[in-house]
């Protein structure tokens, strides 16, 4: 395959920037453009629910790279302009401001969009958290509030609950699962997380689905559970997951099904690739379509896409990894944990708040989880056998 003369990356965040950087690192010298809907220079999302929301970092610290490093990339950043359509045949991207950008290779890295609760737009005081602007608006509202209800007991909901509690608010976490992250990490670790949150004073109203919002005079006053009970709130954060930002690809002819569907090379069509949260690719050893929502995947997948654009023709087979910080707990997870796996503590002690646990299914280790033991967890990463033979994509 010929090296393309021009590459256009759509989405100027973790995966988009990493694609541009990897292309240059791998020796690409052609024209490089990065189109981003947000006006900000590329910034990082994990600090948004942690240091930025807490006020420990000013927003500038969340930038992914200093200006000088971005300038050294020799890429043209077109910011504050959203892609509105793609002609896959000619690889032309149309934008909100009326640009038509053609390139030999197009990389889709548009990430996710937060899923709102029906009716939330009509009420002030209700937030989702995906962007820097979201984080600053939520922080401003939390500073003036005393009671916050977080709808959602996944990673993001649990982090926001912990941060808001750390800011001194009265915090309630609501959601259908019995404990935070129960569907993801299983009952043992989720139980430990529930204990952590309760100990720090977060009220857990879990195991009951949320029915909707209650409001008065255009402002939210609470969250209505399906039982009819209303949890009073000045501020509500909706953290019920996010959907791939593929709306702009409708009509492109590309397959959109829970993400932009790609082959094992992360290619959606000739000369069109996807990386990061938006990409649902064929994992050839796992034998199916997979989409990951984590920070390291954005970088690793971007690195592989860059290599494939330059002709490597490699499959993407990562060992997934994510971390989360909640109160004093730093949790690191390698592999693919699941609620039905058998969980064994192999180092440390949950009571002492430092341990490493192995997840096993059908006699094979599928995940390693470290709770305040990052190094020890990493050292056991090699034991993961379920997606055997997987090396990190570079």
């Amino acid at each position, binding site marked *: 395959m010929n090296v393309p003369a021009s590459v256009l990356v759509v989405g100027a965040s973790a995966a988009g920037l990493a694609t541009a950087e990897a292309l240059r*690192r791998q020796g690409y010298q052609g024209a490089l453009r990065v189109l981003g809907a947000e006006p900000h220079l590329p910034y990082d999302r994990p600090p948004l629910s942690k240091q930025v929301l807490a006020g420990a970092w000013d927003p500038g610290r969340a930038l992914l790279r200093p200006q000088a490093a971005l300038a050294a990339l020799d890429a043209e950043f077109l910011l504050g302009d959203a892609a509105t359509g793609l002609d896959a045949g000619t690889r032309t991207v149309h934008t909100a401001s009326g640009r038509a950008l053609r390139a030999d290779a197009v990389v889709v890295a548009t990430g996710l969009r937060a899923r709102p609760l029906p009716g939330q737009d009509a009420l002030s005081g209700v937030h989702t958290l995906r962007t820097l602007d979201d984080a600053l608006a939520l922080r401003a509202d939390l500073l003036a509030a005393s009671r916050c209800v977080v709808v959602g007991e996944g990673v993001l909901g649990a982090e926001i609950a912990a941060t808001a509690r750390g800011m001194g608010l009265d915090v309630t976490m609501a959601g259908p699962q019995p404990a935070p992250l129960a569907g993801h990490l299983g009952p043992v670790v989720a139980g430990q997380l529930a204990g952590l949150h309760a100990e720090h004073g977060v009220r857990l109203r879990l195991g009951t689905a949320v029915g909707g919002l209650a409001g008065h005079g255009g402002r939210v006053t609470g969250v209505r559970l399906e039982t009819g009970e209303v949890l009073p709130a000045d501020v509500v954060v909706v953290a019920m997951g996010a959907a791939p930002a593929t709306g702009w690809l409708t009509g492109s002819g590309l397959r959109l099904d829970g993400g932009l569907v790609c082959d094992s090379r992360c290619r959606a069509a000739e000369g069109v690739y996807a990386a990061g949260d938006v990409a649902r690719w064929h994992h050839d050893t796992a034998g199916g379509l997979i989409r990951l929502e984590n920070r390291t995947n954005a970088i690793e997948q971007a690195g592989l896409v860059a290599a494939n654009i330059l002709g490597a023709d490699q499959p993407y087979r990562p060992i997934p990894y994510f971390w989360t910080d909640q109160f004093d707990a730093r949790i690191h997870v390698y592999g693919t944990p699941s609620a039905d796996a058998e969980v064994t503590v192999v180092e440390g002690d949950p009571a002492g708040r430092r341990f490493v646990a192995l997840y096993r299914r059908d006699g094979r280790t599928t995940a390693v989880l470290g709770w*305040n033991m*990052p*190094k020890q967890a990493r050292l056991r990463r090699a034991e993961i056998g379920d997606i055997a033979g997987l090396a990190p994509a570079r």
Partner: protein
Amino acid sequence: MKIIVDEDRCCGAGQCVLLAPEVFDQREDDGIVILLTAEPGEHLRASVREAAAVCPASAIELDESG
């Protein structure tokens, strides 16, 4: 090449150690990055650049001016 790590940004992911174990390690107690050498030899530089690029916390900065 000179490496600067920001311990306050580091989330203890250990991706750097996986890529360049001669240059990076992690503290036993909290997993925060330890820089084994700030000025790595020529043969390590490619893997250090890779490590700086994949660090999910942007905690590794490289000064390539020297």
